[in-house]
């Protein structure tokens, strides 16, 4: 296979990882809303943890995106 086309296919495959991170982030906010609607008075105190979980989860998607970019541009 032409190495250049293999690179492009690899970048496309790596981008699937961002979709997996999307599931994680969606799960995170969905579960937070579920908990927050059950006990709204406790929700504000957990906002920091929500953002922390978001950043840690989103970073994994960013790793996949980074691999895709590295394959595309280097």
């Amino acid at each position: 296979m032409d190495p250049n086309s293999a690179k492009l296919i690899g970048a496309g495959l790596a981008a699937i990882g961002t979709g997996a991170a999307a599931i994680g982030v969606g799960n995170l906010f969905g579960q937070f809303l579920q908990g927050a609607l059950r006990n709204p008075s406790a929700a504000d105190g957990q906002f920091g943890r929500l953002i922390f979980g978001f950043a840690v989860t989103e970073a994994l998607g960013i790793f996949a995106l980074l691999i895709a970019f590295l394959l595309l541009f280097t």
Partner: protein
Amino acid sequence: MPDPIHQFEVKRLVPLDIFGVDATFTNSALFMVLSVVTIVGLLMYATRGRALVPSRLQSIAESLYEFIANMVRDSMGEQGMKFFPLIFTFFLFILTMNMLGMIPGAFTVTSQLAVTAALAILVFITVLVVGFAKNGLGFLKLFVPDGVPIYVLPLVSIIEVISFVSRPLSHSVRLFANMLAGHITLKVFGGFVVMLLSAAGAYKALAPLPLLMATALTALEFLVAFLQAYVFTMLTCMYLNDALHPGH
């Protein structure tokens, strides 16, 4: 299309050679110096009055202090406050470098793996030194969790050791990858605008779409710039907490 990697190139500004060690002053070093000057200048100017009723600038400095002090107290307890200077420095240094990088044309220091790895290894060594100095060999209890059945204990210990050793890797790559990927994405969407504008006929009308996207992504990048500084310091607090209280 312009090369989106080009913005991360380290340029040599003042070549400098100290006894065979390459200590060239690069644009990376320039932006680190700029961020230190910004932090020190802002904090010293803000707290020069030491008023009982703070001015607007002074209350910014005070709320920054309170924000990090609360984070340290929540995660490590009162005895963690001796690490407050280290953690406050980490937070402000990373935050300022991220924010300076958001200025168009500026260099993002935190998009260099060498910089973030140095910060993460500093945290790792601090945890090791503090852990062993404070608990002696009791620090190894970190790898032997309570209440685990004896027959799976070797496996759990190996996993704990691997997760401990891989901490500096994930700690540094998280910050580096977020800043790098964010800035590349902005550049790629900027490139789409240029490509559509130079395209034929009706495609020109589509050019505002990637511009809108780039604007929204810039807002997201400001959020990420703050969040990643927050996450880096938060993880530092959690790791140092392990060093102070290894039995978990």
